């Protein structure tokens, strides 16, 4: 006997079967003793329940009921925590709070990627040489792969630095007087630059302008973490402040926008000189050149160029000071953030920053040849890789430097 048949039997005793089904079942009942037995079982169960006695109301039931009515008692609440009417409101509020919490967690932090100018400041440790910022400012226009080709700097003799849009290319206008004239007269090179030491004592003081260290000292130490926890307004104000300071420094350095098409070293990321001098000596940097640079005029780069250009013997050498310069970092966070900003592939290499700093050479296809601590400076020599030359981008662009207040000179030894 199937459950379907049993269900029909159950409905049959309730007179709930349609007429045709009832007749069909009755014919089967007449033919099957088993079906009749099952029907009797169901009827017995039904009778057992129906035979439960009806009870009268308990004594005092109506009195207690009327007493409840008189007290105005409401029927017992069927809810445990919230009345049904309040549930939609509480539910909506709960949803809103949860949504707000989720949104606050998943909301992308704004301005996590700092402007290169700010990144240099943020990346600079407390004892970082001020010249780092200057240097970074010099190459800020070259940061990022998208703008690499069109960016260049120009060293000129003019003292004024016209206002320029923030994202435009920069022009470094050199120191005043004879130094600038001498530089203008010199032959073109792909560029010149120098990263200066922390002491700011190096010759060519304009890069390490007196105002800059004071400003840096007055500024609170900011890290990437503190910047991301700033409010929108604080971050914006801070950005404006940093930008204004940087603009001041650039103006002091004589940087300005280089008109498109005039950039020297087009196709590279190197800083350009409007009238760069002839290639100076580089394979074995001559201490006398460095000394001469230190003794030269107010602008370090200009002084370097002038000094080098003034040495005919040096001009025949294969190397030259690399204007592209590099960034000197004192901690892994600064290196990592600038690594990203510069669009370098892969992860930055890890160094023991307790023993030395790191120089990142920005040109994309370059190789560091040597890092030579000298008496007055640390010389970093690199060259452009040959097209078929294998390269480890991370290692070839980065080299550890001993922590030193010495001037850091970066030379491009690429064949011209």
């Amino acid at each position, binding site marked *: 006997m199937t*459950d379907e048949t*049993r*269900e029909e*039997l*159950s*409905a049959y005793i*309730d007179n*709930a079967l349609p007429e045709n089904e009832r007749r069909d079942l009755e014919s089967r009942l007449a033919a099957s003793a088993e079906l009749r037995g099952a029907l009797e*079982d*169901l009827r*017995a*169960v*039904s009778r*057992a*329940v*129906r*035979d*439960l*006695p*009806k*009870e*009268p*109301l*308990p004594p005092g*039931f*109506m009195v*207690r*009921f009327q007493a*409840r*009515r008189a007290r105005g*008692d*409401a*029927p*017992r*609440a*069927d*809810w*445990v925590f919230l009345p049904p009417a309040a549930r939609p409101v509480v539910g909506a509020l709960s949803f809103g709070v949860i949504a707000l919490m989720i949104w606050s967690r998943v909301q992308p932090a704004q301005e996590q990627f700092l402007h290169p100018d700010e990144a240099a400041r943020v990346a600079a440790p407390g004892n970082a040489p001020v010249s780092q910022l200057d240097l970074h400012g010099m190459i800020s226009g070259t940061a990022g792969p998208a703008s690499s080709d069109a960016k260049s700097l120009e060293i000129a003799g003019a003292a004024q630095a016209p206002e320029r849009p923030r994202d435009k290319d920069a022009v470094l206008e050199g120191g005043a007087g004879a130094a600038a004239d001498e530089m203008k007269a010199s032959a073109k090179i792909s560029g010149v630059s120098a990263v200066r030491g922390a002491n700011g004592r190096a010759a060519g003081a304009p890069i390490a302008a007196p105002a800059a260290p004071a400003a840096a000292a007055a500024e609170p130490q900011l890290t990437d973490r503190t910047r991301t926890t700033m409010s929108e307004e604080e971050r914006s104000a801070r950005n404006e402040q940093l930008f204004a300071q940087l603009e001041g420094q650039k103006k002091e350095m004589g940087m300005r926008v280089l008109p498109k098409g005039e950039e020297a070293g087009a196709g590279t990321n190197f800083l350009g000189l409007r009238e760069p001098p002839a290639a100076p000596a580089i394979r074995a940097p001559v201490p006398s050149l460095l000394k001469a640079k230190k003794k030269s005029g107010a602008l370090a780069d200009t002084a370097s160029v002038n000094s080098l250009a003034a040495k005919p013997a040096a001009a025949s050498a294969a190397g030259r000071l690399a204007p592209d310069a590099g960034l000197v970092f004192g901690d892994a966070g600064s290196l990592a953030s600038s690594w990203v900003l510069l669009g370098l592939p892969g992860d930055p290499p890890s160094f023991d920053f307790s023993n030395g700093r790191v120089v990142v050479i920005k040109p994309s296809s370059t190789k560091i040849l040597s890092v030579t601590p000298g008496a007055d400076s640390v010389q970093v020599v690199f060259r452009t890789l040959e097209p078929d030359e294998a390269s480890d981008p991370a290692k070839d662009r980065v080299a550890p430097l001993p922590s030193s207040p010495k001037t850091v000179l970066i030379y491009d030894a690429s064949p011209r």
Partner: protein
Amino acid sequence: MSEQEFLQQHAVLVYNLALRLTGNRADAEDLAQDALLRAVRALPGFRGDSLLSTWAYRITVNAWKNRVRAEKRRKFWSTVTLGLVSGADGEETVHDIKADEPALDARLETAERSASVQKALLQLDDDDRAIVVLRELEERSYDEIGEMLGLGQGTVKSRLFRARAKLKTLLTKTAAAS
């Protein structure tokens, strides 16, 4: 119909329905009074779409279903919070509506049989028990039962059969044990 007339005609019906649904007199009286309070309040709005008794039964069944749900929630939270809601030893304090209380018909000649049936009824699922009670004791049609419990007619039919089969098994075991 006045309130007084309504109470005179339906209080006993409501109480007996509550008694079979809850299984004990204390809960039955509480449930019946709740249902009657709701019914009296709603009586002016009764439009006569159904029999007044069916309407009163529906109110009683709804009140009971709400109570069952609330009791289940209380049980759940008392279980979750352990000693905070219940006793320090975590003992259950929520009253079990299926508690096996003294036989309702202990003073009657058929006391033992009635007690067995009532005990078997309390072992049914809540909805199944309601279906059996409404069908066997109140002689409601499948349509009426389905309307009161929010079930389809086919569901009422199949669940009634299932409940009867389970009752038969339980009563057979009781008879064999005795």
